[in-house]
């Protein structure tokens, strides 16, 4: 097709020689030398270049004539050859499978100069790409549900950057970025619940493995080649110490992704510990202390309002004149009954007061107290100003109330009487239930909880 004849006539001549542009091959030539047909591709789709109408704009974008003149660098630029963050950068993706592992290796090659031209943000593009690729690999790898993995990223090529920079730092433009991850596959088993693959998070497990591996001379990701080792199939290539640590990091054999950072999980662990470890409970009383407890005969005053009395341990009725063993707190029981209890806990079964510390100083006050106690019957509790200090308590807490400074004698008496009532009453009031609960919550677990989470709401 011939060029439209009216075109040159309509356009005013602003230059001495007309320049013609070929829309097919982007060739340019002088009109007076080669005419209006492209000398390169013989195309007739050509145009004369004018100052206010440069057809070279239109090839770069569907462009607007009013836009600014293009950068000269865009001349001959083919946008489809530019690096595409989604696919074209991963020039090589190698997949190697071994008997118990596989390796995915991708190489990202970026043309730095073109990147910077395409995107004014320039090198900031590198990291999203690396991150996307890492995420993609992780999805591949994570989707297989393997139970253990170690990562071995090959970091940035710049010498000054550490491993941690591999996903967050900046890479010098126009560079080659290689990301490599080696993953070992293991069948799931309880001992190795697995680690997270997220390269940016949960670094603690990985770090521990690496540190331990370095210390013990074996880190799974580093010392074991990607190819499987015969005879090791199915065996986690983790040294025992690392395995123990992995377990420590993952108490309760939680599944991957489970955490013990909730109060609920912590409560369970604390309860478990409390059951296993009764160190905060008073230890046993010595046989000598038990043997030296005074005996007494049950009197009429020991009987309750209904004229009866019983040993509160075996619940057998006692009769007036029967011999019982009396504790320093003046609570009395059958000798064999209380001996059995004291042999495990140095506390009064009723009021929890120990018998051991009374061997020393306060024995002298007992005689004066005993008359008062006897006159008030079996519910008479001694007014002991200082209760036994719980082993391991901080400050001046008492066994029943480790957080509170010692009670006044009045409070102490009241407390003891409540105790007495709640245990001897047939139907405890809700209040006594609560006070029981409060007393119980003063244990180790509660102290830890309060320390961690503040006072109960």
């Amino acid at each position, binding site marked *: 097709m011939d060029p439209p004849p009216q075109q040159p006539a309509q356009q005013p001549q602003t230059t001495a020689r007309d320049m013609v542009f070929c829309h097919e091959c982007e060739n340019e030539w002088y009109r007076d030398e080669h005419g209006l047909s492209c000398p390169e591709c013989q195309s007739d789709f050509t145009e004369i270049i004018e100052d206010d109408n440069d057809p070279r704009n239109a090839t770069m974008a569907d462009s607007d004539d009013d836009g600014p003149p293009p950068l000269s660098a865009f001349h001959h630029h083919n946008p489809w050859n530019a690096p595409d963050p989604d696919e074209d950068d991963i020039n090589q993706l190698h997949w190697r499978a071994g008997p118990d592992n596989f390796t995915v290796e991708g190489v990202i090659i970026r043309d730095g100069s073109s990147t910077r031209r395409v995107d004014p943000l320039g090198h900031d593009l590198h990291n999203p790409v690396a991150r996307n690729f890492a995420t993609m690999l992780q999805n591949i790898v994570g989707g297989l549900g393997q139970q253990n993995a170690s990562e071995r990223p090959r970091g940035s090529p710049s010498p000054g950057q550490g491993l941690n920079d591999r996903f967050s730092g900046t890479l010098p433009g126009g560079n080659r970025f290689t990301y490599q991850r080696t993953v070992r596959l293991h069948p799931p088993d309880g001992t190795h619940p697995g680690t997270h693959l997220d390269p940016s998070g949960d670094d603690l497990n990985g770090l521990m493995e690496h540190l331990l591996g370095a210390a013990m001379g074996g880190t799974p990701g580093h010392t074991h080649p990607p190819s499987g080792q015969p005879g090791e199939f199915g065996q986690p290539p983790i040294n025992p110490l690392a395995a123990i640590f992995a377990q420590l990091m993952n108490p309760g054999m939680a599944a991957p992704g489970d955490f013990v950072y909730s109060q609920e999980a912590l*409560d369970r662990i604390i309860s478990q510990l409390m059951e296993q470890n009764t160190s905060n409970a008073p230890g046993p009383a010595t046989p000598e202390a038990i043997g030296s407890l005074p005996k007494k005969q049950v009197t009429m005053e020991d009987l309750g309002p209904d004229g009866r009395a019983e040993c509160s341990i075996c619940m057998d009725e006692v009769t007036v004149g029967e011999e019982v063993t009396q504790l320093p707190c003046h609570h009395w029981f059958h000798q064999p009954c209380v001996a059995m209890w004291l042999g495990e806990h140095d506390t009064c079964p009723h009021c929890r007061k120990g018998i051991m510390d009374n061997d020393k100083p306060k024995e002298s006050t007992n005689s004066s107290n005993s008359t008062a106690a006897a006159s008030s019957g079996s519910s008479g509790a001694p007014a002991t100003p200082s209760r036994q200090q719980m082993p391991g308590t901080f400050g001046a807490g008492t066994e029943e109330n480790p957080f509170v400074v010692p009670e006044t004698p009045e409070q102490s008496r009241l407390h003891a009487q409540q105790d007495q009532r709640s245990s001897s009453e047939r139907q405890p009031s809700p209040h006594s239930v609560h006070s029981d609960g409060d007393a119980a919550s003063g244990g180790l677990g509660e102290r830890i909880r309060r320390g961690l989470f503040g006072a109960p*709401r």
Partner: protein
Amino acid sequence: MAAARKRILKEYTECSNDTPPGMKINFDEQNMTEWEILMDGPEQSVYSGGHFKLRLTFPNEYPFKPPVVSFKTKIYHPNISNDDKGSMCLGMLRPDAWKPPNKVISVLHLVRTLLIEPNVDDAIEASIAGEFKDNKKGFEKTAKEWVKQYAK
């Protein structure tokens, strides 16, 4: 053990003479360390209308060690573990808080009281306790649904 059985028998007599409201104790003399307790949800509680089966297990060391309470019927409650054990372990039932003079009848009353008024400060299910505190309506809804679903 003989002493334990003797006391358990005494306590059963006491409990059967004065059973807490809505409770029924199935006692087997051949196996008196395992009590089965059928309990109606207290009327003033969200568990009203439900029928719960509990097991009370006495350890060989009883009364020197506490009895173990477990709900065989699933129940949505801050103080009862939401698992197949359904265990309730608080207050006097804690091993370190138990005293030999405590009686089973008190334990039964404790269970009943807790159904009426959960103790959120000593919860075994922290998430349920949190809901009880922050979203009581939601808690009551779920608890009632569970009653319908499991305790009928």
